[in-house]
C-alpha cells in the first residue's frame, strides 16, 4: 500500500498508527478513514494522504509513504513486523520503540530515530538528527536491540544509554556519540564530535574515519590490534549494502579502555591505519 502525502498541513501529525501491521489486509477506503492527530485536532488518513492500493493485494505487510514527511512524528513507532518504506524525509521519532520489521527511509530523518527500539532494522539513506537510538529523558536505557544504519551523518548523542544492538553511521557523528553507553556496538566512518563514549560502562565504539579523534581523557590506550569480530561486523554491514570501504577490513585499530570513571569495561577503537 502506498500513502502519498498531500502536503495539506504544516501542523505536526502523529503518525504512530501508520505501520504495516495496521494497514495490511484493509481496503483502501478503510485505511483512508483511520484517525490521525493533527495539531490538537483529529483528521483521517484520507484527509492527508492519497491512498493507493494499486501495487499490491493488500495482504502483505508492506507500507510505503511518499512525500515530504518532516512534520509526521513517530512514523513506524512501536512497529513489530513488516516493511515500511519512506520515500522522502521523515519527521522525529521515526521507528522509536520498534520491536521488529524493517523501516527504510530514502531521505533524511529528524531527531530520536530508533530511540529505545528493541528489535528490527532502521535504515536511513540520508542523514539523521540527534538522539539516534538514544534513551528518552528520564529513561535509564536507550536502544535495547536491533540495528540502525545511517548512510549519512548523525547529530548529537547517538546511542545515548544504549544497552544492546548496533548503530552504524556512514558519515560524521555529532558530540556525545555513545555517551553513557551501557553496552552494544556503534560504528562510525566519518568525522567524530567531542566526548565520544563519555561515561560509557561497557560496549564498543569503533571509529573508522581517518580524520583523527580526540579521545576523552578518562580512556586509556592499550595498544593497536586487528579485531576479528570487527571484520564480522563490517562484512555484515557490507551485506546490508552499507557503504564500507575495502581498506577498513584489515584496519589496525587503537584500543582505548574506558570510561575509567565508570569501571573501564568499555572500549573505543580508533582507526590506526590499514593493515
Amino acid at each position, binding site marked *: 500500500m502506498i500513502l502519498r502525502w498531500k502536503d495539506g498541513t504544516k501542523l505536526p501529525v502523529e503518525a504512530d498508527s501508520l505501520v504495516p501491521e495496521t494497514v495490511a489486509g484493509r481496503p483502501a477506503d478503510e485505511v483512508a478513514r483511520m484517525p490521525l492527530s493533527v495539531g490538537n485536532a483529529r483528521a483521517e488518513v484520507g484527509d492527508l494522504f492519497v491512498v493507493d492500493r494499486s501495487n499490491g493485494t493488500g495482504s502483505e505487510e508492506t507500507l510505503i509513504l511518499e512525500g515530504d514527511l518532516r512534520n509526521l512524528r513517530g512514523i513506524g513507532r512501536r512497529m513489530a513486523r513488516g516493511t515500511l518504506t519512506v520515500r522522502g524525509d521523515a519527521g522525529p521519532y521515526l521507528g522509536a520503540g520498534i520491536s521488529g520489521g524493517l523501516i527504510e527511509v530514502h531521505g533524511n530523518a529528524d531527531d530520536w530515530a530508533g530511540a529505545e527500539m528493541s528489535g528490527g532494522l532502521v535504515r536511513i539513506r540520508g542523514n539523521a538528527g540527534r538522539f539516534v537510538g538514544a534513551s528518552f529523558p528520564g529513561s535509564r536505557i536507550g536502544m535495547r536491540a536491533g540495528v540502525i544504519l545511517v548512510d549519512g551523518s548523525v547529530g548529537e548523542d547517538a546511542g545515548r544509554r544504549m544497552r544492546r544492538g548496533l548503530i552504524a553511521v556512514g558519515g560524521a557523528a555529532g558530540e556525545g556519540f555513545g555517551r553513557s553507553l551501557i553496552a552494544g556496538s556503534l560504528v562510525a566512518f566519518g568525522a567524530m564530535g567531542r566526548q565520544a563514549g563519555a561515561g560509557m560502562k561497557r560496549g564498543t565504539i569503533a571509529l573508522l574515519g581517518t580524520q583523527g579523534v580526540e579521545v576523552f581523557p578518562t580512556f586509556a590506550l592499550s595498544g593497536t590490534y586487528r579485531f576479528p*569480530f570487527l571484520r564480522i561486523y563490517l562484512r555484515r554491514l557490507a551485506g546490508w549494502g552499507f557503504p564500507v570501504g575495502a581498506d577498513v577490513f584489515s584496519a589496525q585499530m587503537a584500543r582505548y579502555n574506558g570510561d575509567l570513571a565508570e569501571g573501564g569495561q568499555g572500549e573505543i577503537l580508533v582507526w590506526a591505519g590499514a593493515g
Partner: protein
Amino acid sequence: MTDTPQTPSPARRPLSIARVEIIDTFAEAFPMTAARAIVTADDPRWAEVAGRTMSGYATSVIGCDAEAAIERALAPEETPDGRPGVSVLLFAFSRDALEKALANRVGQCVMTCPTSACYNGLPLDERSIGVGSRLRYFGDGYQISKCLDGRRYWRIPVMDGEFTCEERFGTTKGVAGGNIILLGVDPRATLAAAEAAVAAMREVGQVILPFPGGIARSGSKVGSKYKALRASTNTAFCPMLRGLVPCELPEQVRCVYEMVIDGLTLESVERATVAGIHAACEFELVQVSAGNYGGKLGPFHIHLHEVLSREGMPRGTREGGNR
C-alpha cells in the same frame, strides 16, 4: 586401531575395476553427533596449525573423546571474519560428549594458537552445544560478548590480542565408520593407492578421514584374549599371521590399508566411498573390500557394488567377470 572392521562377507557377485576385484560386501556405519568448527587465523599456515592441533588424538572413539579432522581449507571469503581458515569436523557418540570434546579442544588447541578465532559451521537449532559459552570464563571477567544476527561471539583477551569464539555450535546426526579396505601385494603400491584414495575422498566435502593421513593400518576386531581390552588387532587381516590364525586374505596379499570415513550425511560418505574406490583402482591392487559387523550393529550399510553402480561405472569396469 580402527573402530570398524570385521571380516568382509564372502563375495557373491564378481565386479572389477581396472582388474581390481571389488568384493560384494558392505561397510557398516553408525550414527554419530557431528559439529563443524571454522578455524581462522591471520594466515593460512596458522589456521592449519590450529585445525590440525585441535584434531589431534581424535582417530577413533574407541580410544579418543571424538573423531576429528580437517575437512578442507577455506578461502577468506568463505569464513565469517574474512580471514583464511580451515573447517574441522568432529564426531562423538552424544551431544554431551561432543560439547565436552569440542570445548576442550577449542580451548586447548585453538585458543592457544596465535591469531586464531573459532566459529560455528552448522545451522543453529535446539540441538546446538555451548563452546564459547564455556570458554569465556577464561577471560576472568574481561571477556566481551557481541551479538549479531542472533549469533553471540565471545572475545576473550589473550596475550596477542583477543580470541574470538562463537558461543554456540550447531550439531547434526552424522554418519561415522564408513570405510574401504585396500588389499595389495606390494606395500608401496598399496600405500600409493591408499594415498590416492584419500586425496579423492577429501575432494568430496562433508567428510573426514580421521586416521593419520586418512589411512589406518591397524584394523581391529572386537574383543581380545586380554580381558581388559575391548578391541585387538584384526588377526584375519594381518598377513604376518597367515598360517597361525584363520586368514581372510587372498594368498598373494601382504599389505592391507583401511580408510575410515565420517561424514555429515550418508550420501557424502557414499560419494567418498565411490571416489576412493575409483582412485585406488588406478593402482596395483588385488581387492577392494569393506569392514562390517555382519550388519548387526550399525544401521547404515554401504554396499560397495550398489554405490558403485548408482554412481556409474568408470572405464575399465567389468561386471560378471573375473580377474
